């Protein structure tokens, strides 16, 4: 796994913009996702009202989170499951390792889990002699490449088919060099064959959780491939990695949010597989895991409760904000430098790793507002990005030049008479420099502008000057 590089955002961006393969892969990503969501939304007249209800459900949960957690825990225990509380990634990793060791596990299969990425679980398992195998196709591919996911629901969306073929040929040593893998179905079939044997051989299966239901002590996963189900059904032990904000009160509430999840994510009405798991194998069950464990991770989330950032905890990780974000679509997910990319990532990451370690992320937004417009949970993402900028301002984390420049500007702007004079001078000087061409190729202190575009010159006098003249 690559190291966190959130503060190297600018370098990451330069690399991403110069990466032709990435740019090629990204060209179609946003538009396709957007078209699918739009179609799904139009086919369900109740969609926006469901979003309101989904938001209200999560708000209610967050306001009663302690009680929902206790209720959920009691219910899991009642059904024979085990609950492990983890304050930090260390706690969570240790809990997973202990369960694996008790099960004498050599290999674990894994369904898609962002929490697993967040706690960097694979590395820890490998260091302790346990082989983790990602089974979601996208996750499997990036595991082969030792990369992070570049998208919350489409981890390998930054890659092209020929890159995947090269990875398979490198790792799947059984592959006949003559076998044609140029088409995508052939690649999928190859992965299916390899992973099928892993499911059957694994000792422990680890999945994430899209929701935890307090009413019944149930964890829910949503997949299309069926990998999560094979992962959790075939091994003896099933471990669920979940963060504490995944709680919903009832099956009805989970259902409501599920109705907006797939539509927002992939534009499907419902994902192919929505699986509700409650405890381990029951008497008479001929299959299924013997043991069922849930790891409840905090990792900074409780610090967000009760603050101006609380709404981020409503996020259901659908990825709609990524798909609709022009910045994400320009640079891809890896530029963000950690686990959660895109607009919601720029809100969540500073909360989990500290704003001082993610200074660029809240700034790399034009506040265009598309993320908030499409968020199924109606999270006011731009507002939260702005709150992070306020924290950066308070803590003097922004570049000195910008701070100084804005400070001078604001000082002048608060003094209308001075402002009138200053703008009149600036307008005249810039207009003169343009020599009647209407634009400038270079402007002092505006290299960021003129590096890529001309600077439109002022017309000459300010509006206020001309208005005064006209009234005279």
């Amino acid at each position, binding site marked *: 796994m690559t190291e966190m590089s959130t503060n190297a955002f600018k370098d990451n961006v330069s690399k991403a*913009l110069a990466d032709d393969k990435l740019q090629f892969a990204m060209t179609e990503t946003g538009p396709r996702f957007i078209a699918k969501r739009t179609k799904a939304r139009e086919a369900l007249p109740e969609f926006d009202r469901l979003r309101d209800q989904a938001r209200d459900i999560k708000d209610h949960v967050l306001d009663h989170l302690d009680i929902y957690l206790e209720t959920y825990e009691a219910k899991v225990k009642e059904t024979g499951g085990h609950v492990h509380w983890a304050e930090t990634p260390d706690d969570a990793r240790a809990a997973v390792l202990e369960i694996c060791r008790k099960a004498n596990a050599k290999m674990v299969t894994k369904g898609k889990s962002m929490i697993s990425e967040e706690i960097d679980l694979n590395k820890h398992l490998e260091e302790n002699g346990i082989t983790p195998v990602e089974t979601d196709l996208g996750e499997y591919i990036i595991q082969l490449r030792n990369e992070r996911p570049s998208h919350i629901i489409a981890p390998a969306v930054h890659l092209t088919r020929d890159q995947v073929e090269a990875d398979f040929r490198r790792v799947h040593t059984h592959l006949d060099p003559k076998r044609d893998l140029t088409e995508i179905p052939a690649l999928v079939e190859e992965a299916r064959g390899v992973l099928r044997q892993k499911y059957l051989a694994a000792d422990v299966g680890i999945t994430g959780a899209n929701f935890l239901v307090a009413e019944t002590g149930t964890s829910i996963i949503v997949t299309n491939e069926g990998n999560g189900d094979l992962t959790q059904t075939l091994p003896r032990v099933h471990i669920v990695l979940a963060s504490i904000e995944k709680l919903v009160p009832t099956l009805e509430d989970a259902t409501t949010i599920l109705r907006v999840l797939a539509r927002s994510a992939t534009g499907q009405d419902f994902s192919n597989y929505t699986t509700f798991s409650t405890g381990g194998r029951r008497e008479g069950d001929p299959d299924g895991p013997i043991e069922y464990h849930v790891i409840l991770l905090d990792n900074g989330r409780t610090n967000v409760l009760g603050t101006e950032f609380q709404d981020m905890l409503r996020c259901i990780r659908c990825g709609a904000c990524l798909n609709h974000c022009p*910045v994400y679509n320009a640079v891809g997910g890896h530029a963000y430098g950690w686990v959660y990319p895109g607009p919601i990532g720029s809100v969540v990451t500073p909360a989990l790793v500290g704003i001082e370690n993610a200074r660029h992320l809240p700034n790399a*937004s034009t506040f265009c507002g598309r993320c908030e417009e499409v968020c199924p949970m109606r999270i006011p993402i731009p507002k939260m990005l702005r709150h992070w900028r306020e924290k950066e*301002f308070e803590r003097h984390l922004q570049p000195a030049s910008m701070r100084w420049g804005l400070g001078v500007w*604001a000082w002048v702007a608060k003094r*209308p008479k001075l402002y009138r004079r200053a703008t009149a001078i600036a307008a005249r000087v810039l207009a003169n420099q343009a020599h009647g061409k209407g634009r400038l190729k270079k402007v002092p202190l505006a290299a960021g*502008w003129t590096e890529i575009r*001309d600077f439109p010159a002022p017309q000459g006098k300010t509006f206020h000057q001309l208005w005064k003249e006209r009234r005279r």
Partner: protein
Amino acid sequence: MPETSPRVGLFVTCLVDMFRPSVGFAGVKLLEDAGCTVEVPEAQTCCGQPAYNSGDREDARALALNVIAAFRGYDYLVAPSGSCAGMIVKHYPEFFEPGSTEHDEALDLARRTHEITSFLTRVLKVETVKAQFPACATYHDSCSGLRELGIRNEPRKLLSSVEGVSLREMTDAEVCCGFGGTFCVKYPGISDKMLEKKIRHIEATGADTLIAGDLGCLMNMAGKLKRMGSAIKVRHVAEVLAGDYETPPIAEAK
């Protein structure tokens, strides 16, 4: 036309004031033609967005107070910008404690504040403008106007009434052009990528004129088009609605 002439305070916007007064005068013409009495409060400077979006809440709040004071007593505040109007409508009230006098005043100003095309169509019920402007044009929806104020049909409706204007929709008209205030100078690479996509869609329409309602976005797109050597002319919607084709397009020679 309303029976009594509404008293409108024109919020010029800092960019129009300094870079393109012709947009302000076009706005004045449109408002006067629609029967308004237009004044320009002397004490206005900037709505405060650059400070607000940079995390400097204190300066933003001070600038908000300045605007609130400057526009006291007007029936309406009208701005040739969805972005500045959005700031006043959506964000000024957030600066003040609910229940305070300032908060009440901010809410009151928010209720009186409008972007110019939506003011003309929604408030004054203007259906058409009397203007001529020869242009095969495409319209870019600036983000704040579109998503904060829901302005989409208003400019198109008015533009379609201008004699000589034919409108062609571009793909992704609602996607950001990459301006974003200080964003475009802090992250020029990303901004450039966004601009490239935007300009591809603009060019694909075959339009000879690009129109939008916010000078920031317009300067960004015009700057890029001119750097690329494009002949596409860039105009603020108010100029087109006012029939001002004599003023050179943005970033072009006199």
